[in-house]
């Protein structure tokens, strides 16, 4: 038998049925649900009189629309947002699925809650009506985003109709330099491959620099696999993974833990397994990076300058021209000269405890630049509680940051946390699309440490100048 990749192994373990043309029915172990992409799916079930096939494998949490201000128990002002959250309350109850309502301390961004509660485990298939489901790949789980029709399909059948993707290996060798984080790795990979470079592939991230990452860092890397166009990102489970998972509320216990561990230890890519594409980046070559444009592939080391449209080829020339205009930048301008109005620390990319620690480390005993709007939105109520306990919340508050409740917040600005026209934000989120953080708002994607640094200086800043 030819050697298998990690992806091959997980795939093979979940095929329910394979048609002659290779179309497979794939079994889904965990289905995560949030309020924005699910109402039409539940409505579809009701209309067809279908139940949820495996409610015990289905977990729901509202995150996109929820207010993150401290007075949120007073309810949601925006009527449509409120209706969506109420619809999820009702659907979770009617269909008997696990639910973390807004009032629950465990509520948070779906991709942070799943791992935190031990729902996400190695070797699983995990889906959610949300593209950043790729996050869960950090556990060696095959995890990807699906559309609402597929949400309905999974609710009804606990399966998905899939064709196998191609295998891509992204290897980050060696070690990272000081100031370089998981966020810089994942952005640097997209800078290298482009936003369509991963289309049709499942990426396995490997190499010394990846193995050295914590689970939080690995989740950051896999989270943005989708920005590189990949269907999913994967990292083989190891001791770091097992240590993170052990003892979580829904992780296996006792004899089941041992059985699970035995299987998880077989989940790695065998020597000589075939990859359709291989990208290798030296860890030492990665620098702290920042995006200058309106696509995540518009990424450059912080020491660089704004490019000119003529630096590009084909359709990218017009796209770059449009980006530079939208972002209000001048070609040749140094990136560190770009002034920032707002700093946002949060999202499923960088809203975990380690991200908050990294930002707090930079901010400790310092104050944000006068006039800076700065906020921290923890990824879950439990992350928030832990940060309070560790004294990080005080560091943020003392520095002049707003200390919010958990949710997606300004990552996509569906709730009132939005940029105004022309407002420029250093953000730890994952998308710098036009209007993503508010109509005509301008986003620069950075790591938590770089976001904190920008909050202190008032402009994009090389974190290495502060450490």
């Amino acid at each position, binding site marked *: 038998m030819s050697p298998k990749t990690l992806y091959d192994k997980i795939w093979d373990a979940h095929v329910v049925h394979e048609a002659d043309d290779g179309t497979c029915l794939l079994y889904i172990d965990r289905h995560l649900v949030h309020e924005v992409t699910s109402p039409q799916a539940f409505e579809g079930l009701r209309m067809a009189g279908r139940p949820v096939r495996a409610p015990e494998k289905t977990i729901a949490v509202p995150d996109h629309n929820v207010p993150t201000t401290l007075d949120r128990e007073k309810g949601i002002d925006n009527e449509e947002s409120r209706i969506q959250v109420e619809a999820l309350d009702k659907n979770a109850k009617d269909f008997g699925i696990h639910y973390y309502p807004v009032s629950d301390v465990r509520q948070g961004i779906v991709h942070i809650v799943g791992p935190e509660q031990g729902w996400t485990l190695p070797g699983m298939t995990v889906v959610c009506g949300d593209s950043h489901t790729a996050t869960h790949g950090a556990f060696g789980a095959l995890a990807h985003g699906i559309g609402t*029709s597929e949400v309905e399909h999974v609710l009804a059948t606990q399966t998905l109709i899939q064709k196998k993707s191609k295998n891509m290996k992204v290897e980050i060798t060696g070690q990272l330099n000081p100031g370089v984080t998981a966020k810089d790795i994942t952005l640097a990979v997209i800078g290298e491959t482009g936003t369509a470079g991963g289309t049709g592939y499942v990426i396995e991230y490997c190499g010394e620099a990846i193995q050295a990452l914590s689970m939080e860092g690995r989740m950051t890397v896999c989270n943005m696999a989708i920005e590189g166009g990949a269907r999913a990102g994967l990292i083989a489970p190891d001791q770091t993974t097992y240590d993170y998972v052990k003892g979580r509320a829904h992780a296996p216990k006792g004899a089941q833990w041992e059985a*699970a561990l035995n299987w998880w230890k077989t989940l790695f890519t065998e020597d000589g397994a075939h990859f359709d594409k291989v990208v290798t980046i030296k860890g030492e070559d990665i620098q702290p990076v920042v995006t200058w444009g309106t696509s995540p592939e518009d990424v450059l080391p912080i020491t660089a300058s704004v490019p000119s449209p003529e630096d590009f080829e084909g359709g990218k020339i017009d796209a770059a021209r449009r980006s530079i205009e939208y972002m209000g930048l001048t070609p040749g301008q140094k990136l560190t000269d770009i002034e920032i109005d707002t700093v946002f620390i949060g999202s499923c990319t960088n809203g975990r405890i380690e991200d908050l620690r990294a930002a707090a480390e930079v901010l400790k005993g310092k104050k944000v630049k006068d006039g800076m709007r700065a906020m921290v939105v923890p990824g879950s109520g439990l992350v928030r509680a832990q940060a309070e306990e560790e004294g990080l919340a005080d560091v943020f508050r003392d520095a002049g940051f707003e200390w919010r409740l958990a949710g997606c917040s300004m990552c996509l600005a569906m709730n009132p946390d939005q940029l105004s026209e022309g407002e420029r934000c250093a953000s730890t989120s994952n998308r710098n699309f036009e209007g993503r953080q508010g109509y005509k708002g301008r986003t620069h994607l950075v790591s938590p440490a770089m976001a904190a640094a920008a909050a202190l200086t008032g402009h994009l800043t090389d974190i290495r100048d502060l450490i």
Partner: protein
Amino acid sequence: MDKFEKLHGIAAPMPLVNIDTDMIIPKVFLKTIKRSGLGVNLFDEMRYDREGNELPDFVLNKPQYRNTQILVAGDNFGCGSSREHAPWAIADFGIKCVISTSFADIFYNNCFKNGILPIVLEQHHVDLIMEDAGKGENARITVHLETQEITTSDGEVIAFEVDAFKKHCLLHGLDDIGLTMEKETHIDAFEDHHGTHRPWV
């Protein structure tokens, strides 16, 4: 779902690359709990000013493209989020076919669930159709799913690939869930086996 057989008409040109789902349907319109009615907000921020007036330069606001059923776009169309609101908005507007050199994966899949045919072509073929599209009324093209062919206004025939299963569903307007339900015994058997071997799942 409506059946998809053949289209004949003018294609609207959108040569911009990396048209993302936030451009296709901005998030303010994701708050609906319905599938329909999103067409008026398709490409909202490119199509209207802040007061809601149409921007005359935007392609779908030009008289010749207002009723187009075909869109021809730059590379990597539909990148970004998994929101099915994007294909819902496209379908609700009346567009049934999108042509590009590449599509984001989730968007591509979502199209088929909504009766939209996404077609991937080589750059030079997209360029040809883009050229036709630029001619407006003067250049109609035909998209024929059964034969997997596009005929340009000059009569040039361009073949395209489409997954056989997806094609079958589109041609007959079939719903995936119903088809999967027919395999329920396989799912039962898998769950039995899985439950014994991986009881922690």
